[in-house]
């Protein structure tokens, strides 16, 4: 790809010019895939942005654009932010990966942070959260709470991120309740209240009395509430408006500590490209309050598991574990390596059904 072009030179000249003027104020841009009011994924990223504003006050200026489609639109929005003098840009959706790399090439002095991707360069870092640790806690609660022994799971897309979550939840539900069975419905969306509600209703009709979701709206919570005897967990955001019942706990994405740390690094001039994959321990994954609908002993067990995950004493994927087809995966006491986890495209033994292709 040709770099020495009109655009690049103009942009760089401009970048140099603005760097001198605006050196005292660090400009941080955020590109969001959904609306800030989605109550889930984008909402939590925007909470992270607000935390940056609260932390640094007048030292920083933040800008954001919401509902940015993946592809050329995102590339334009990132370029626009870089042209307008952003020093650091967070691109918060997997589909922004190639656009982020493209724009980063044109603006070597701007730092980019891409969420959930795997492509990095000198000025592009990646970051993601070990949500599967939260799924282990959810699985434990779910396994204890189900009376029908059928747990419903609303998957978004059959990608490693989601498959990890299903496996982790299943392993830990099975551990406390050997009779447990998972029913998985793929919604093929991250955020679509109508489809999510339909998926929840289908699962409830099939006998599920616990619903886990990897989609971002509160529609499954509403469906569970209407059913009356089904429990759910908040996803991405606390969804506490459905607490204490049907929502009994949640996985919360907490990007604030990371966003503050990275902004600080840019201010200090110590920013460098790296890959971050943090879990409960680093505070990137939060477990929302376990409500009183959960018996005290189950709550205590879940919290103990959370502590062990946080301290690193226990890994969510600890052998002996077999793959779905019965082939051995992890030996007794062995833990999964990050490479396998990052590209996970198989179910563990006991889960039924095929991963859609």
């Amino acid at each position, binding site marked *: 790809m*040709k770099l020495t*072009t*009109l*655009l690049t030179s*103009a*942009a760089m000249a401009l970048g140099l010019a603005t760097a001198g003027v605006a050196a005292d104020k660090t400009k941080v*841009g955020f590109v969001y895939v959904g*609306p*800030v009011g989605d109550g889930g994924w984008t909402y939590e990223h925007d909470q992270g942005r607000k935390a940056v504003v609260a932390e640094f006050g007048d030292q920083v200026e933040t*800008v*954001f*654009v*919401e*509902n*940015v*489609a*993946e*592809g*050329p*639109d995102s*590339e*334009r*929005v990132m*370029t*626009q*932010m870089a*042209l*307008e003098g952003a020093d650091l840009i967070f691109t918060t959706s*997997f*589909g922004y990966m*190639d656009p982020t790399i*493209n724009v980063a090439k044109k603006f070597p002095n701007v730092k980019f942070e891409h969420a959930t991707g*795997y492509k990095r360069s000198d000025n592009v870092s990646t970051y993601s959260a070990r949500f599967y640790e939260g799924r282990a806690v959810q699985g434990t609660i779910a396994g204890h709470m189900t009376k029908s022994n059928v747990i419903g799971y609303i998957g978004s*897309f*059959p*990608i*490693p991120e989601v498959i990890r979550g299903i496996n982790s939840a299943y392993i830990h539900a099975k551990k406390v309740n050997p009779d447990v069975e998972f029913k998985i419905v793929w919604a*093929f969306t991250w955020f679509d209240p109508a489809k999510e509600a339909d998926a929840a209703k289908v699962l409830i009709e099939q006998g599920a009395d616990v619903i886990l979701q990897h989609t971002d709206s509160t529609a499954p919570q509403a469906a569970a509430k209407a059913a009356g005897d089904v429990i759910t967990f908040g996803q991405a955001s606390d969804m506490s408006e459905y607490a204490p019942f049907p929502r009994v706990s949640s996985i919360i994405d907490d990007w604030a500590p990371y966003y503050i740390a990275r902004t600080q690094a840019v201010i200090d001039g110590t920013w460098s490209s790296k890959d971050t994959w943090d879990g409960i321990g680093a505070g990137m994954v939060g477990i929302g309050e376990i409500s009183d609908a959960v018996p005290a002993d189950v709550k205590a067990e879940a919290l103990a598991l959370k502590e062990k995950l946080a301290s690193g004493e226990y890994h969510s994927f600890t052998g002996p574990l077999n793959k779905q087809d019965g082939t051995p995966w992890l030996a007794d006491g062995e833990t999964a390596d990050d490479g396998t986890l*990052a*590209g*996970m*495209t198989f179910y563990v033994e006991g889960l039924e059904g095929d991963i*859609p*292709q």
Partner: protein
Amino acid sequence: MIRLEKRPQPSQAWSLATPLVAVLATMIAGGLLFAALGKPPIEAIRTIFWEPLFGEFSFYYRPQLLIKGAPLVLIAIGLSLGFKAGIWNIGAEGQYIMGALTGAGVGLAFYPIEGWYVFPLMILAGAFGGWLWAMIPAILKTRFGTNEILVSLMLVYVAEQLLASMSLGLLKNPEGYGFPGSRNLQQYESAHNAELIANSGLHLGVVAAFIAVIFAYVLLNRHMLGFHIRLTGEAPRAARFAGVNPTRLILFCLGTSGALAGLAGLFEVSGPAGQVSIDFNVGYGFTAIIVAFLGRLHPVGILLAGGLMALTYIGGDIAQSNLGLPSSAIQVFQGMLLFFLLAFDLLTNFRIRLGAPETA
């Protein structure tokens, strides 16, 4: 008392003035909306309409107007032919997806062979994919009399499912660590719809859009088929007496609009977007319907309307970033454009009279 009176003849002046009046009214109503949100209205309107064209960074935004406008114009031109004849293809979004899938599929099948013939084959495949998808409502309509509006619209959702399936399965990048999405065609030279001049925004899709405008103009004004299309829309009975074959016309209009939408998808997936992904389609097929009507179903009008829509998208994103306007406000603003257009359109056929109706 205010009442409407039907004009004996549609007003030529109003027909031309309506889009301009609609844009002005949108600016005023939009400005009021922005003011109600506590944002500076003049500044917001200026950011949306002026910044991309003449602002500080217009050297970057102007090419982006071509990139954003080209698929809209290409699709809208195809749709306008059918709309003129009263054949309603609402499913261009699906045909756009199918064109991208078949076109990218052909390109990916050749990977990593480099050859001059790869891209032309992709273009053919892209047009064919869109055409084929449009043939479903066309044949169902001509054979069984089904409603093409419903069939074409519902096929959009089928195409979306197929897109997700392809991104996760057949076309998935084998080196993508299991993540969804195909290889990036921007990194495969033979299949890359690159800019013809670096940073001009001018890729083959833009060229195709201009060619489509010229062809549509010639077709509608100089060709018998164009006359038949107009006649069918304006006077269906007269058209039948004039020997217009409705079956042929339906197949032609739906087929052409499908092929053009498919081409738009192919040029997008092999150029600006680069890869087949689950969220590849961003609504060009639906926005093109607005563009077609905003352009009065006239090829030159569509060209201008496509530019205007692209401007509001790009300016809208700038306004979000610089002024903190919520994206939903921008969407309302774009919606107003169609609303006012349709509202003022009334004045083409009616005139407003004040006072009591004259008694006969």
